[in-house]
């Protein structure tokens, strides 16, 4: 099994809201100091899913990232987890690409890699929360896709994917190659071993540019974006909270019960 995993570096989604701020002039997030970007948590699950398939079926895992030169560090984390190869897709022409350009570039990367059975993505990038790129890569490659997967099994050259829906799970079957996006229900991603980390430090990570991919710069980056961001602002819903107190927890809880009876519809 030749598996390509798409990884996006994101701001840590668990960071406290108080640390999150936006430059209202440029409509950009101000990166909080001392908080390096992390692997999008769903993409770490995509690496995990790839490793499980490789453990069962053998094969090779290639991690790809389209972000910036700094992304090499994020790719090393995927290698430390067990990915065999990593490619950093980086070119000034790619800056400010929207989800369609991103998917277009990644689909071209997949084509250039050439041999592939599976492309794995996260269900959404925990920064812009789109949940689009995986499906669009599949469209551009004209191959099947299943989003929000919890588990993937390969048997006799066929793919079985269990996906999460609002009220349960569904199992789909399809041929290879295919695109699958991973959801949190899949479980936890593994922690790299010491050996993995040493291996990752030594790994040569090539950079592929716009011309390496033979792409017309007009088709990517800001010029190709279909929607434009006109405003970005922080949103922290807040209400004034009446704190219930009493001489002990019992009394306070009693008062809260009264309060609930008042507001109960």
């Amino acid at each position, binding site marked *: 099994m030749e598996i390509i995993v798409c990884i996006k570096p994101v701001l840590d989604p668990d960071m406290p809201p108080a640390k999150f701020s936006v430059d209202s002039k440029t409509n950009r997030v101000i990166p909080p100091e001392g908080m390096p970007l992390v692997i999008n948590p769903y993409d770490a699950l995509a690496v995990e899913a790839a490793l499980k398939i490789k453990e069962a079926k053998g094969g090779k895992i290639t991690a790809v990232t389209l972000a910036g030169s700094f992304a090499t560090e994020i790719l090393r984390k995927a290698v430390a987890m067990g990915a065999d190869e990593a490619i950093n897709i980086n070119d000034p022409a790619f800056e400010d690409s929207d989800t369609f350009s991103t998917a277009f570039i990644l689909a071209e990367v997949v084509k250039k890699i050439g041999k592939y059975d599976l492309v794995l993505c996260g269900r959404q990038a*925990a920064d812009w*929360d789109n949940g689009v790129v995986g499906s669009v890569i599949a469209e551009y490659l004209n191959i099947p896709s299943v989003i929000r997967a919890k588990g993937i099994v390969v048997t006799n050259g066929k793919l079985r994917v269990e996906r999460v829906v609002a*009220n349960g799970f569904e199992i789909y079957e399809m041929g290879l190659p295919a695109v699958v996006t991973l959801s949190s229900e899949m479980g936890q991603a593994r922690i790299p071993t010491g050996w993995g980390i040493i291996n990752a430090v030594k790994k040569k990570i090539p950079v592929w540019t716009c011309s390496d991919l033979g792409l017309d710069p007009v088709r990517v980056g800001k010029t190709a974006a279909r929607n434009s961001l*006109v405003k970005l602002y922080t*949103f922290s*819903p807040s209400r004034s909270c009446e704190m219930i107190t009493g001489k002990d927890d019992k009394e306070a809880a009693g008062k809260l019960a*009264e309060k609930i009876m008042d507001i109960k519809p």
Partner: protein
Amino acid sequence: MAESKHILVIGEVEREKLTSTSRELLGGARRLAGQMGGMVNLLLMGPAVSAAQEGIQYGADKVYTAQDAIFSEFNSDACTQLTGEICRKIRPMLCLFGQSDLGRDVAPRLAAKLDAGLCMDCVEIIFDAGSNRLLQTRPVFGGKAMAVMATSGDRLQVNTVRAKSIAPEEPKDERKGEVISVTDGVDASLIKVKLVESKRMETEGVKLEDAKIIVAGGGGLGGPEGFEMIGQLAKLMGGVVGATRVPVDENWVPLSMEIGQTGKIVSPDLYIAIGISGAAQHVTGIVNSKKIVAINKDPDANIFRMADVGLVADYKVAVPILIEKLKAGR
């Protein structure tokens, strides 16, 4: 692609009724059509389509019904194909989906096929007549920020809309509309994925999304026993139990109970949050609740910033007293 000011709503039907999200979409489409000057079209796909008249009552001018056995189960390929056909026919300026299983899957694929603009999980859509642009607002960064995205009116725009973010119109029996049956079938040779098994949990009683009272528990409940306890409280109040992601990940409760960005979006009259820290990804799913009551043993928990009434206490002490007092009444 967009040569008209029409809107196409992709409707969803459950137990022969439009889903509440579909009604919300029609309400939003009706108001936008008033400003844009186009028509509201509704597409319903199913093995047999029953809710066409209801669609008209809720605001559709034209209802396209695609009746095909292939739609008896959700199939992303079939839906993408059919919505694409209808878009080519109507040439709308705006195509609206709910942020549902269907919308999450089909909207990106449709937009890719038709070179359309796309905004997922919108909470507001405005038409700016002066600049002939659509402006859509969507929560980003797990709900910590809002982004306003603009689309030029010359391009087809595909949006998914978050549940409970726009109001439906009152249904009117006297509204008139046209029902058009779509005859072009789905090309089965283009179907790439096959559903082999479906494990859906039917909710008994009121659905979380429709509940007036929700008692929700988080990681602070420590295990399934905690959920049994708050279940008693919910039952006593005629409410429904919800959860954050932690209890779902820990398998204390089923996934269908998760509330938040990646779970259900709720807007009850009363939301009681017990042992919940108030992370952005959870709070984004409850902001529209009328009243929020929080019980948490940590006085600095973020949930208190978001609540109307708060109690700092161990839930194991507080909840049994609440149950006892509410049973006794006044």
